[in-house]
């Protein structure tokens, strides 16, 4: 199913933005890069241990970032309240990460080092991340492994009892620590257990099945959140001295993604509307090896480890619309397009390149499977070469998973794969101290605009979430609290009452529309639009089209959505409706950001800007900056630019030929 470039609707609304007159100060410490974090730590103001329990910190999210931050802050003696929408903090989406976590331990003596991890991450992110942050991340990666091992995370071991590692995501060194195919689960359980220990100790109060619906900002500082108890429907406020958002990514804006169904942008979007800048919203990552759609009832996409590409060969029929089953298509009529286009890397070409190549052949009508949205990943040669047993040993569990979902036996017929949205590099803008543009509002994990620039390397998100939560936020939040002179506020404060009222009104409004279409219908329509025009490849007319369509669809949503039930009970449709409403707003900003970034970089691929071989072509002259957007209730979003300076790693073009 090729996507035609749409003719823009007759009246193109001006997709405009304004330049904000703020200067974003990332507060990067001076001095050589290896000393910056040490210097920052030394210069931080400390809260005396006896005073800590007087401060209340609200941590929203219990994923790797949130759970580790809440646990550590609790251990330090702060009074912490932690929130998640699932029924238990252990179920946060981090649980689903499979592959592994990077750390520059150099246990293999293969030339790895903090500096190399730093270098790889900057380069992998296509030079759109902040050097100082990335260096600190690489530095802390080492401590993360120590911490997790001490907690009892059962990382893979060698027979001698030492930790095993593997190489991942095209890295040339073996620095990825893993726990079978469930690394995220095991790391999260470690953090969850640490969190539970603090709950038992009374330092952390946990609020599961509680969704944050708004942020309370008083006198310019983040002082609380408004939540809805998902069981009773009660809307109430929680006040504190600082708010930490670790609410994960917004990949679900595409409806179909590898994210959990509940992943949402509500927390960060509401914070954005209260004044937090949103950085690089258009940097979204597509993963090349997911199980394709099987029908329009599809509710999510399942990721399969990229390691499959080590032995599988990717191909499509040469003939568009070839109706034959794969095994009947002769060698000569198959197009092994990755091997053809990228002879050196072949089937192992990086995520973004492999994803785009798949889209391209499907756009040409050569895709396979339902709707023509899929390409073959064929193991028959590998099976011939290595035998079924070896393949079973290497990929048995993945093959089983594939068979469970599709009902097809990948030992006999080639797998079908297709790219899917997987990760969002964009998020709330934070300074070196992970504080957003609202004082007292900190952001960690996938929710911040992160250290991954325009493209995240495999096994680096887990690392970043835990670095933020265990080692950075607990110090920087304290540093803020030690200096902030915060007046006492209580629940009767007019701002608190006003924000609560707004939340109540929004819920009421959603429930009263009582239209004809379901929330999912709207979400699907939005997702389709985003995937088609703001997905793997973007171009100006497409983005303009999306920018015209999104508000239209949003209007329809507010006119015609049906949310059954009441607000005073468990109401899953209401939960979804609120999240989709926020996705609609974020979608527009995402498209606008993609339109404004008139270059290709990492995962942001503008068709207008590619090299002859179809690779992303950056424009460092014009776009070596972080795009931080401010909400503007009265007009178009306001853009602030944080220039990126590369002192250590010279700007260079990626090449994977």
């Amino acid at each position, binding site marked *: 199913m090729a996507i035609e470039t749409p003719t823009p609707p007759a009246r193109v609304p001006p997709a405009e933005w304004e330049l904000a007159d703020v200067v974003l100060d990332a507060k990067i410490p001076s001095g050589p890069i290896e000393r910056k974090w040490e210097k920052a730590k030394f210069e931080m103001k400390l809260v005396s241990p006896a005073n800590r329990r007087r401060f209340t910190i609200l941590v929203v999210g219990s994923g790797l970032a949130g759970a580790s931050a809440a*646990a550590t802050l609790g251990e330090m003696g702060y009074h912490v309240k932690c929130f998640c929408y*699932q*029924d*238990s903090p*252990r*179920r946060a*989406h981090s*649980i*689903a990460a499979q592959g592994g976590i990077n750390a520059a331990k150099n*246990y293999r003596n293969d030339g790895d080092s903090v500096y190399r991890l730093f270098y790889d991450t900057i380069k992998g992110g296509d030079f759109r991340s902040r050097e100082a942050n990335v260096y600190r991340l690489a530095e802390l990666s080492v*401590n993360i492994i*120590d*911490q997790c*091992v*001490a*907690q*009892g995370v*059962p990382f893979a*071991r*060698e*027979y*001698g*009892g*030492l*930790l095993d590692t593997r190489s991942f995501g095209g890295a040339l060194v073996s620095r990825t620590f893993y*726990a079978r195919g*469930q690394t995220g*689960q*095991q790391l999260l*359980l470690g953090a*969850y*257990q*640490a969190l*539970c*220990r603090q*709950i*038992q100790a009374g330092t952390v109060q*946990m609020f*599961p099945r509680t969704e944050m619906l708004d942020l309370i900002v008083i006198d310019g500082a983040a002082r609380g959140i408004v939540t809805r108890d998902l*069981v009773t429907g009660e809307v109430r406020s929680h006040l504190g001295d600082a708010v930490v958002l670790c609410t994960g990514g917004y990949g679900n804006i595409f409806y179909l993604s590898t994210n*959990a*169904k509940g992943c949402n942008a509500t927390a960060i979007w509401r914070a954005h509307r209260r004044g937090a800048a949103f950085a690089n919203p258009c940097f979204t990552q597509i993963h090349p090896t997911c199980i394709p759609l*099987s029908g329009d*009832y599809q*509710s999510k996409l*399942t*990721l399969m480890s990229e390691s499959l590409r080590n032995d599988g060969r990717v191909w499509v029929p040469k003939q568009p619309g070839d109706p034959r089953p794969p095994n009947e298509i002769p060698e000569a009529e198959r197009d092994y397009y990755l091997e053809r286009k990228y002879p050196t890397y072949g089937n192992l070409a990086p995520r973004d390149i492999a994803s785009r190549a798949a889209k391209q052949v499907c756009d040409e009508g050569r895709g396979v499977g339902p709707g023509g949205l899929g390409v073959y990943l064929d193991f028959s040669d590998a099976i011939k070469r290595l035998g079924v047993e070896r393949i079973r040993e290497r990929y048995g569990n993945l093959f089983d998973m594939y068979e469970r*979902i*599709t*009902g097809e036996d990948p030992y006999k017929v080639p797998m079908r794969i297709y790219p899917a949205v997987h990760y969002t590099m964009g998020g709330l803008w934070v300074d070196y101290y992970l504080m957003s543009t609202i004082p007292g509002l900190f952001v960690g994990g996938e929710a911040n605009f992160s250290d991954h620039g325009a493209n995240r390397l495999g096994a680096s998100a887990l690392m970043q979430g835990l670095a933020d939560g*265990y080692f950075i936020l607990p110090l920087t939040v304290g540093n803020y609290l030690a200096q902030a002179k915060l007046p006492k506020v209580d629940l009767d404060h007019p701002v608190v009452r006003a924000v609560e009222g707004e939340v109540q009104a929004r819920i009421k409004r959603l429930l009263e529309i009582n239209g*004809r279409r*379901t929330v999912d*219908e709207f979400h699907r329509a939005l997702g389709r639009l985003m995937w088609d025009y703001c997905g793997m490849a973007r171009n100006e007319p497409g983005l303009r089209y999306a920018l015209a369509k999104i508000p239209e669809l949003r209007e329809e949503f507010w006119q015609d959505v*049906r949310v*059954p039930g009441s607000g005073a*009970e*468990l109401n*899953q*449709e209401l939960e979804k409706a609120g999240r989709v409403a926020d996705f609609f707003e974020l979608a527009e900003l995402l498209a606008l950001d993609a339109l404004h970034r008139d270059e290709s970089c990492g995962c942001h691929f503008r068709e207008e800007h590619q090299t002859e071989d179809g690779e992303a072509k950056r424009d460092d002259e014009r776009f070596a900056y972080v795009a931080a957007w401010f909400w503007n209730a009265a007009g178009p979003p306001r853009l602030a630019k944080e220039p990126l300076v590369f002192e250590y790693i010279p700007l260079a073009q990626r090449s994977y030929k």
Partner: protein
Amino acid sequence: MRLILKIWRQPGPDAPGRFVTYEHNDVNPHMSFLEMLDVLNQQLIRKGEDPIAFDHDCREGICGMCSMVINGVPHGPQRATTTCQLHMRHFKDGDVITIEPWRARAFPVIKDLVVDRSAFDRIIAAGGYISVNTGAAPEAASILVPKTDADRAFDAAACIGCGACVAACPNASAMLFTAAKVAHLNSLPQGQPERYQRVVRMVAQMEKEGFGHCTNHGECEAACPKEISLDTIAQLNRDLLAAALKGVRA
């Protein structure tokens, strides 16, 4: 495909519940079980009825959120598979499917198929951790763990906390869940210092929550989507007995 679904509907924790029969004519064999329910819910909403509430999140079989008893078996007929990973091709056209929530006093129903499993969190909080503050960890490579121990710990650590073991157990016992965590941590060198206190505390909390006792029926193991082994229960028993003989108290 056409199916007859008998689904437990209960508007709230204290409201009485009952089975409601739905005819579902729109089932595709490639759908997952939850997608089948999604489609039904869409129809219900359009008809102005209340959709069926059920827990789910990752839909990949790892978060442990999905939870329903399908034709008398938690997570349904396919072994080692969560509800979200169960596909409709395992059913036949015309099948009658009964769908119920987890049933246990310690897991009260919140609405329809949604139950409250916070008892599990409290069991973990009672001792299912290794006490190490952030920053206090020694160098990772200084702790050697024989591969067999690591593998055993991992097998137990694979538990997703879904509660199917409780739902399946004729006594509504939480032994497999509790034992999985005990076995995970007590199999590792890092877990040794708190080994006995951990088991005593976790078992005490498990008792408090109102679960039944373990008679070694083995239903839990058979229903567990992660195939957690009964060996973990034997290990819990051993460690608890040893703790008692040592006089370790909660």
